[in-house]
């Protein structure tokens, strides 16, 4: 189906993905817009993203591939993870109830990192599967084969 605009939803982890899907409902019913999703792989909590994506019936474009394209809009509900590498105007949303966490370091331009990259997950004995369970591993290409690299 031909579409007029491409929107990239940038997933950081399951938490940000749930919020992202809530927000992207604003495109419901509009055939002019095709949604794509990618996962930065930057969050220490990428575990479950692939399952989440499968459960909600959306494919994830590998991050390296997503960087090659130009999208008409990108939407993120978390910060960090090389968002600047995405070629698209970016709208950043809070992923929780507003902004309640301290800035743990000098923020990059426009970025308030709720994830505070210095914090480790609490499972001391069990690091999240970064590496072993990357969402990208073996992930399908987006079905919309007509994904336009020229934007």
């Amino acid at each position: 189906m031909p579409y007029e605009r491409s929107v990239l939803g940038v997933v950081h982890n399951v938490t940000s993905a749930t919020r992202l899907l809530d927000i992207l409902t604003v495109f419901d019913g509009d055939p002019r817009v095709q949604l794509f999703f990618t996962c930065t792989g930057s969050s220490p909590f990428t575990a479950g993203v692939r399952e989440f994506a499968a459960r909600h019936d959306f494919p994830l474009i590998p991050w390296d591939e997503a960087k090659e394209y130009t999208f008409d809009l990108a939407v993120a509900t978390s910060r960090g993870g090389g968002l600047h590498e995405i070629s698209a105007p970016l709208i950043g949303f809070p992923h929780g109830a507003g902004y309640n966490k301290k800035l743990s370091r000098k923020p990059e331009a426009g970025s308030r990192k709720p994830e505070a990259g210095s914090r480790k997950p609490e499972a001391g004995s069990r690091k999240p599967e970064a590496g072993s369970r990357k969402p990208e591993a073996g992930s399908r290409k987006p079905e919309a084969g007509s994904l336009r690299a020229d934007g």
Partner: protein
Amino acid sequence: MLHSAIVLSHEEQRERLRAGCPEAVPVAHTLGDPCADELEVSAPFREEYRTALGIAPGQKLVVITSTWGTRSLLAQECGRPEIRHRIPFALVHRALAELPRDEYRVLAAVHPNAWYGHSGRQIRSWLAPYLREGLLLPRPESDTWKAALCAADVFLGDHGSLTLYGVRHGLPGVLAAFDEDTVAPDSPMALLGRLLPRTAPFVPLRAQLEGAMRQQPGDPDLARAAGALTSRPGEALRAIRALCYERLRLPEPAHPVHARPVPLPPPDPSVRTAPLPPPVLAEVRPVAGDRERVRIRRYPASLHRPADLEPHDPHLVVTAGEPGPRWAHTAEIVVAPRAADPARAAAELFRRHPGCALVAVPDPRDRARSTLVLREGAGHRSYRARWENPAWWSDTAAAASVLYGRLSETEDEAETEIQAEAEAKAKAEAEDAVGTEGTGAPARRITVGIGAAGPGRDTAPGSVLVLTRVAGSGPTEVAAPGARPVEGGEPAQGLLGAEAAQVPVEGER
């Protein structure tokens, strides 16, 4: 500039952004909070969400909300000086152990980072002792947490977002953990950290939750804090769509956009139901000194520790076939399988459970009826029990507990009972003498409720338990004072009429 737009949910955040990241201020847009709007339009469907979650009418739903990390609620342990080991998942433990299971349901909303960081399987394994006792544990990426907030009566929270959404939704709550180190001091969350009460380790949890439910509704400070969640209530999706389409350089679709109620939670496929209920500790007490009105509270025996704050004077109830020897051998009451011949079923269970004082045999056809068989020396004494207006909790085990509680009262009261029974016997003999066959007679009507009662408490429906003494092992029944023979083996309606079927219970909305 990295972002073409930064979305804020409340205008208040703009000043904090200016302080922390002034270069972002020009691209900041205050669009509200779509989740707050969603909860708002879902509020009218509280009963629908409660039904979908399996919450019985009158039950209170406690939502435990936990963010992730070592400072989160779920990571908190508890221990008391008299307990040598520490208990993990302290608040889940306390909620399930201390809250009477008929009155309260408990749902844990776990942050996806904790859930997926450890795996859902692992979280369910860690919480298995509580899942067996009825803990609801929805997958965190579902919308069930929102439905749960709509269905809830009170929450136990920490510094996670759900605390803000709970307060925003008007829920009273108590904080069981709060990480001041990561919460921005000028944020709404920090304000809630100052306003909400904290759980106290040595005060019964029920009292703490009831206190919150009594005191917090209408609190202006909490309302003000909740107001900081969105400065554009009801408008978030519309505002977000407008911004997105502006950036896409497309005209917005013609159809309007607005928040919709949270979908009803589907049945949880991970829920496993055992063929027998877990052992309970039951406590039966007269209400306001009235022996004909009692309150029953039941607690999961498996979670009980001697140092627990409640219950005070419990008896143990198990179901026949209970696999735990610790429970099977010490139970005062054993609930038998449905049986057509209660005396025989009871004899067998008394043999298998030497410590058991009462065997309760459900009627094979009518779940409101049962036969309660008391061990009496080498013999038995039997009662027929019937719930007049059964509620979800008024089962055979509850009937047995009420009778057991009655018989374990103080000696004075027991004497009164004996006296009454002697009179009953005399009356029955008299009736026999005039030829009225005692088809039904010595009824004791006890109004049973599941809440505490006291002055100024609200009321919830109680159920009336009708206990009829069955004479010896034979079919003849013994009449009680004032009893009249009626058809069908039931006490006369005239006897029933005056009794109110309501028992005051506390805390009910």
